[in-house]
């Protein structure tokens, strides 16, 4: 095993991806200790450019942008992970079930997926917001419910190919139960897909948050990268914008880069065939 870890360790994708994620995670976990100000403190000179006191300046509400960024990052990570993991779980379950059982269940699930994909997301979000209390966890779950069809379709397509592979059929002939086949054969086989899908889902969730904020459909008091972006965009014409708009976008980019790189390298780790590439 140590040799394998050595090999993995030398993989530049993993190094970069892991470093990025660790950096972001560290920043979001330890950040609050390092931030000089309470991100909700509105007592500074609004729209002032960076200074020793305020490393990235002050936003329109008189809040320290750097502190806001660190807190946003933490919220966004949490939000993205929740939406991503739930969406992935739904997608993987739906996709595998559709591929495995085929027939009417397949048609049912896939057409359900089409229907969900075809429904405009804002309509659904507004509807659900009207009937349930719109807090971020709820929104993340809704986004997961709206986003699962994508992964489900991709996973289904792959699983369909796998289903007819001999080693699976062999296991079936050994009398394996569906649960066993899913657990031991299908799930690990599709692992790379999950990571890629997870990265995509996190991306979608964070972008959607930003979009909803931009359209005025999301709690403006929430600290999140999306919300920061949507606020900063309103002042694109002021001198402050690069310090305000670019940091959250860069954080978002790094987050998605980290997840993607990690997905690429872990793909190799989980697929023994690719290890010696």
């Amino acid at each position, binding site marked *: 095993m140590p040799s394998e870890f050595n090999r993995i360790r030398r993989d530049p994708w993993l190094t970069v991806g892991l470093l990025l994620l660790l950096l972001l995670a560290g920043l979001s976990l330890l950040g609050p200790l390092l931030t000089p100000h309470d991100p*909700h403190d509105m007592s500074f000179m609004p729209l002032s450019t960076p200074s020793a006191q305020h490393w990235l300046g002050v936003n329109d509400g008189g809040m320290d942008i750097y502190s806001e960024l660190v807190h946003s990052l933490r919220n966004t990570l949490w939000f993205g992970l929740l939406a991503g993991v739930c969406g992935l779980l739904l997608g993987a379950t739906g996709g595998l079930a559709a591929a495995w059982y085929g027939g009417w269940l397949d048609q049912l699930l896939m057409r359900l997926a089409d229907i969900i994909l075809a429904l405009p997301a804002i309509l659904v979000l507004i509807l659900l917001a009207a009937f349930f209390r719109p807090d971020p966890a709820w929104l993340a779950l809704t986004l997961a419910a709206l986003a699962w069809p994508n992964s489900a379709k991709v996973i289904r397509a792959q699983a369909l190919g796998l289903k007819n592979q001999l080693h699976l059929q062999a296991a079936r002939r050994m009398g394996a139960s569906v649960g066993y086949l899913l657990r031991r054969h299908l799930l690990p086989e599709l692992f790379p897909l999950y990571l890629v899908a997870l990265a995509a889902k996190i991306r979608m969730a964070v972008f959607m948050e930003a979009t909803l904020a931009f359209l005025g459909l999301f709690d403006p008091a929430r600290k999140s990268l999306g919300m920061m972006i949507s606020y900063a965009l309103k002042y694109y014409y002021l001198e402050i914008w690069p310090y305000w708009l670019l940091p959250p976008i860069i954080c978002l980019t790094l987050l998605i880069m980290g997840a993607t790189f990690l997905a690429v390298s872990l793909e190799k780790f989980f697929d023994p065939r690719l290890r010696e590439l």
Partner: protein
Amino acid sequence: MSSALLRNLTIVSVFLLLLGGGPATTSYAGNETRTLKIADGRGDWGYPNPFLHYPRGVGYIRMSWVFDTLVWKDESGFIPALAQEWSYDPEHLAFTFKLNPKARWHDGEPLTAADVVFTVAYFQKHPYHWVMLDHVKEAKAIDRHTVTIFLTRPYAPFISNIGGIMPILPRHIWQEVSDPRNFNEPSAFIGSGPYVFKNFDQARGSYLYEAFADYYQGRPTAERLIYLRAGQPLVALTGGQADLANIRPEMAAQLRQRGFEIISDQRGWNKKLMINHRRAPFNERKFRQALAHAIDRREIIDRAHRGFGAPASYGLLSVDHPMYNPDTPDYPTDQAKARQLLEHLGYRADAQGYYHRDGRPLKVELLASTITAAGETAADRDGEVIRRQLNAVGIRVELVNLEQATTDSRVRNWQFDLALSGHGGIGGDPLILVEMISGEVGAGSVNSARFDDNPELARLLREQMTAMDPDERRRLVHRIQELHALEVPAIPLYYPDSLAAYQPAKGVRWFFTPGGIGKGVPIPQNKVSLLP
């Protein structure tokens, strides 16, 4: 196949590059000095006629270019429009208007007293909700250019809210029309205003008007008037796409630098904190007063609006209004006082300073709403600041942000505790007080406090409507403001600075009409600006 594809792609990309560097401003240059372009963020405000324009003020303005009223307003106050002069006969409760004999419809027909008579009757049958004709009995043509409108009872806002708002319809067209909402033919847009309606493109949100050469006040100065939708007014202005647009206060400096003229409105629009006074504990006046003491409106302006605004009068009427009562009670920010009032109501603070009563924590929900003066929506931080302020006096606040129409629906149906809202009209006729306070009149309005608990207030609201004597009316309105401030059925928060920028090179001077256009629309698109 692939190489051909590559070649095509190269061509397309080169083409796009050329495009980028190429025509830029040339397409706007031309000889279009007589075209004026006005931009707003939404674009689509309905077809410009009384029955089809959207009920917001922006829709009314779109219509006002096509349809003239009897009376109009400019910076100095009421000015003649279709009516050259008017008089009031208190004995017969009758207003008599002398019409401008030069007035013509866009199809060339002359405009006569019969049209006015017809219009009143038509609107009595098919209500045009901008105009309340409850107090009007009938209109009679005295001669071809003289018309008298008889009232059933005195109606103080007559000149401003009927004479100054009611568009006159051409009888020869509308007498045939029994279902005005489905009347959408070109003739539905024949009016007597300075501009002829040419086109409305719903998808692009653009309108085209052309000058009416035979306009009775002279041919308008700009040949074509265009409305268009612009996502970013600043870029639209500097890029030459628009000549006039509402802007955010922060944009003013840059635009001034680029030679734009910046104009600002009177304090005619206020942001309000709606209170569900039908629900405990908000039904207690002391509680509402405690809220007023707890909220630091200056801080809201400073924090959420970077100082671009002014605290509003608790009496609801704008401080710029001629009938503003300078002695309206004030609620200076005073956390101790707020806490004192709450404790007087039986609330007890816990260790963290949050209040409880009868074992239940004092917890309220604040609906944040994103409406702004220009009729568009934009998120702001008012809710955040208020939450902090109320939290600071021991009231736990949960901030809820919903889609606008959902928020409106909940407020209208009293499914809320506190809600942020806003409306204009407070610089116009004091009729706004009735609409924004009375539960009977304002039943359908989201912005109306719909507060009838104070009998004196309710009585005064009714009385001022019929007070034809300005001094008498002023006295009543002063008292109403005092009572409103005392009861605080809703808390007027602040008047945000409302700014617009225009390109002076076009030779047109735009202005904000004091008290707003018509029913107090705080938009600087007064047709007087384009008259010779």
